[in-house]
């Protein structure tokens, strides 16, 4: 059943999503796009774009959006789709709630735990790889449709990296550009 699957997938994403929103994208993508095919790679990119323009963490935004779309695409009514987004959003938050309650029992012990500090020696550099994988997975023919796509990518990369253009401004510029060149 789709609601149970949604719950399971987003619970897993909440539980293993180390390293912030961008690192979590690879995780979300693998389950949601590749394995369950609830949304296409293109739709997923749109969700990321929308998440960057709207308030809130990317994990929550994508859970809400994918929950809705997955149920909608499976042919259910709009009310059921809303229920899908509720399910996915609760599921992605639940591991955090449980972990925080657990840690609060022995806050000091957790903070000075040597195993956790050691694990991050490996996790921190791996996070860079996770973000890279998220970007590489989206560099496909669905998102890069012609030579103009590559020019937009290069320009957006340089503008945000070298000239500190704000991501929201970058998104608005790209969207406006699209109206003229496509």
């Amino acid at each position: 059943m789709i609601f149970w699957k949604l719950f399971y997938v987003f619970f897993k994403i909440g539980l293993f999503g180390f390293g912030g929103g961008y690192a979590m994208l690879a995780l979300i993508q693998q389950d949601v796009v590749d394995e369950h095919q609830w949304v296409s790679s293109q739709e997923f990119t749109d969700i990321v774009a929308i998440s960057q323009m709207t308030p809130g963490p990317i994990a929550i935004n994508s859970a809400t959006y994918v929950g809705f779309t997955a149920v909608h695409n499976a042919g259910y009514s709009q009310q059921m789709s809303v229920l899908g987004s509720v399910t996915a959003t609760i599921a992605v938050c639940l591991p955090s709630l449980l972990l925080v309650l657990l840690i609060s029992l022995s806050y000091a012990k957790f903070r000075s735990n040597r195993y956790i500090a050691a694990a991050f020696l490996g996790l921190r550099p791996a996070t860079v790889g996770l973000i890279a994988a998220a970007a590489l997975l989206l560099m496909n023919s669905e998102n890069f449709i012609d030579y103009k796509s590559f020019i937009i990518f290069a320009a957006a990369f340089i503008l945000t990296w070298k000239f500190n253009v704000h991501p929201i401004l970058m998104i608005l510029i790209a969207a406006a550009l699209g109206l003229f060149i496509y």
Partner: protein
Amino acid sequence: MYWTLFLTFFKIGAFTIGGGYAMLPLIQREVVGRGWMNDDDFMDLFALTQSLPGAFAINISLFIGYKLKKTLGAIVCMLGSVLPSFLIILLIALFFTHATDNIWIEKAFKALRPATVALIAVPCLTTALKLKLRKSILIIPVVAALLIWQLGVSPIYVILISAFGGIIYDFWIKRR
């Protein structure tokens, strides 16, 4: 008190664009400004939150809520942070399922998609530079990315292996 907690986090959740870390200074100002916590406690909590999985903003809301009002406080603060994103995205999703065949939206998104990929590639580079990874360590992100991208390995395995790798390195290799 519960209502104040809810409203505080709802306000922060509704007005910060740009992901969890953008919410940090606002949370700090509200929580420290209201005398719920001092700066040192807040920074401690921040450090702790970085070593947890999940959305950063949600985790820090939960901790603050728990510190102030135990389990119920944690749930109230979490709901406050989550609801604005949830409601806004839900509205967009409801609208968007009918608007996908709009020609102008499709034109805008055609150009938006490669730009979005660039917006993911930039934090990858800046995180790598910020961590000042040594050349010998660079193999970790390269292998991690290749495993996920080319071989379709689940990111969960990559996360588990790198965490165990860190423990093995610290406890057995570094000690010799």
